[in-house]
């Protein structure tokens, strides 16, 4: 059984088609999910893609997090379903308190689009288990609100619990402790600002993002038997 990966489209989502393509290129079955329905069609994992859901009104991800589809997603994530939030998706996961901390305006106050060097800090998650610890990769980063913040206690806790998944090499936006991506305690929910779905083809970049998809594939192969 080929694992089925859902990708949610909110009003204003932009990188949903790229995420769907990346899933397909990885040999998995992409399933488009509409924000307005409360069914996730029994998928095995969900990706919340990048974009400007609801125009970033109020705060990035603040409105999308209350979409009908999110209640089902939160329920399943709490039960262990793999969930990946990319950029705006990461913002939605933080607003929904599935991940600690919050994303705020880049310290430099401009939108930054760059091919960003990252260090893999933890391979102990559903989405990163096929990387190697300390591996340096280059992934597309394109955001204006990528500055990760959390209070001291939270930062200490997630560092101690190995919940920091990626760190910037050369901090582009002022994120606390150069944090580019985090995971929850269980390791099934991961959020990151950079866009691995843009790094799956040599023609348009590099393929440093592919291990996200091989990782979830490996996890699901074990989990689903």
């Amino acid at each position, binding site marked *: 059984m080929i694992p089925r990966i859902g990708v949610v489209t909110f009003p204003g989502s932009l990188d949903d088609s790229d995420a769907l393509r990346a899933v397909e290129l990885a040999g998995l079955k992409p399933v488009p999910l509409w924000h307005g329905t409360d069914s996730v069609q029994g998928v095995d994992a969900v990706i919340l893609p990048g974009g400007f859901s609801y*125009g*970033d*009104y*109020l*705060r*990035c991800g*603040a*409105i999308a997090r*209350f979409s009908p589809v999110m209640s089902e997603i939160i329920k399943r994530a709490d039960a262990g379903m793999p969930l990946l939030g990319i950029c705006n998706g990461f913002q939605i996961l*933080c*607003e929904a308190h599935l991940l600690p*901390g*919050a994303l*705020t*305006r*880049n*310290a*430099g*106050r*401009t*939108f930054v689009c760059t091919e960003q060097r990252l260090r893999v800090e933890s391979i102990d998650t559903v989405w990163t288990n096929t990387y190697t610890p300390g591996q340096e990769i280059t992934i597309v980063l394109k*955001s*204006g*609100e990528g*500055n990760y*913040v*959390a*209070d001291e206690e939270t930062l200490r806790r997630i560092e101690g619990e190995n919940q920091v998944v990626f760190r910037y090499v050369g901090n582009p936006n*002022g994120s606390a402790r150069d944090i580019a991506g985090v995971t929850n305690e269980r390791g099934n929910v991961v959020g990151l600002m950079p866009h691995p779905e843009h790094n799956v083809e040599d023609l348009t970049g590099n393929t440093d993002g592919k291990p996200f998809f091989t990782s979830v594939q490996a996890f699901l192969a074990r989990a689903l038997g």
Partner: protein
Amino acid sequence: MARVVVDVMPKQEILDPQGKAVTGALARLGFEGLSVRQGKRFEIEVAGEVTEAVLAQIRSAAEKLLANTVIEDFTVYAAPAPEQGRTPQQAAALQQSAPQQTAPRPATTPRPVPTQGTAPQPRPVQQAPRPGTGGQQQ
């Protein structure tokens, strides 16, 4: 109709790059010694009176949606009702003289045309908010 206001400000320990930028800009304009933090204000119209129950309801709305309590603090309070009929801009506009002519340009430029919509010198225009409320990417 009554009005409740929710003020949302970034928590003290959160970096406020916009506030910083505004502080710097003010200083460059000669407004020394001012330190600015930038937040958001929500004006909520409620039917009937502002009771404690209404305030509690709005506090709950603020907690759930209007503010992200990880990074923001908020205050909720009843505000005086708006003056009937006019926005402040409208009141000011009516006090000025009738439709403002643009200053004539030298011979080689035309009379202003509506679709071009501009004047040689900047004249007061309503500053519309940029897409998304405060704190959003620009």
